[in-house]
């Protein structure tokens, strides 16, 4: 069993759910999360150049005294981008198929499409019946 955690765009969620339905793995958990990636939350790289520096200073996070020593590496204000995180637990053999499908549905070729993580899961239990492992997620 593997857990697939996909952090995706909010507006791609319905499509992703439909796709998972069609593949026959409709069970999922959705969470609203905020995050940022390698681009450090810069959602609007083009807009950034037009934005006056004073704007960024105004909204920049105020460091607390204990972090003054830290070098603040961001050239522009760091934003957290709201995302949806889906968590699904599936058998080993379909992991690559599902990952490929999620990538296909969510690709916009713009930054911020998200990340998919695959984690090992040791055991699963269905609370209602007490079933374990494969039966619990079947």
């Amino acid at each position, binding site marked *: 069993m593997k857990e697939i955690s996909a952090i995706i765009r909010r507006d791609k969620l319905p499509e992703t759910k439909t796709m998972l339905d069609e593949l026959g793995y409709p069970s999922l958990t959705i969470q609203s999360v905020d995050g940022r990636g390698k681009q450090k939350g810069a959602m609007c790289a083009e807009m950034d150049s037009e934005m006056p520096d004073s704007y960024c200073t105004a909204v920049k996070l105020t460091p607390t005294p204990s972090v003054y020593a830290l070098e603040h590496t961001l050239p522009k204000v760091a934003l957290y981008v709201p995302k949806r995180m889906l968590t699904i637990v599936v058998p080993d053999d379909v992991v690559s198929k599902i990952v490929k499908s*999620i990538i296909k549905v969510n690709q916009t070729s*713009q930054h911020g499409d998200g990340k998919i993580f695959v984690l090992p899961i040791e055991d699963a239990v269905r609370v209602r019946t007490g079933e374990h492992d494969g039966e619990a997620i079947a």
Partner: protein
Amino acid sequence: MKMIRAFIRPEKEQEVVLALEGAGFPSLTKMPVFGRGKQKGLQVGPVHYDELPKTLIMTVVDNDDADKVVKIIQDKAKTGFIGDGKIFVSPVDAAYTVRTGEAVL
């Protein structure tokens, strides 16, 4: 790769994030969570708080960096009082970037 999930005090979040960023780990996902620990919540006089607000910071890093990141979070989130939180490290089999479809972090 390792997934690091740190349950920290909400007021320490910014400090931790800035420290991680300074060390070259800008990518993270955060979410507000509620929980309790070994002390079964918090007792203030007659009032018992069972579910305390925490921030969950989730980040995935290379194996070699895991210890470093844990150390940074620990240093910054520590107040020395109960309720500082927990850090969990779990293995990650693969990470994909959706935009490119590549299996790299």
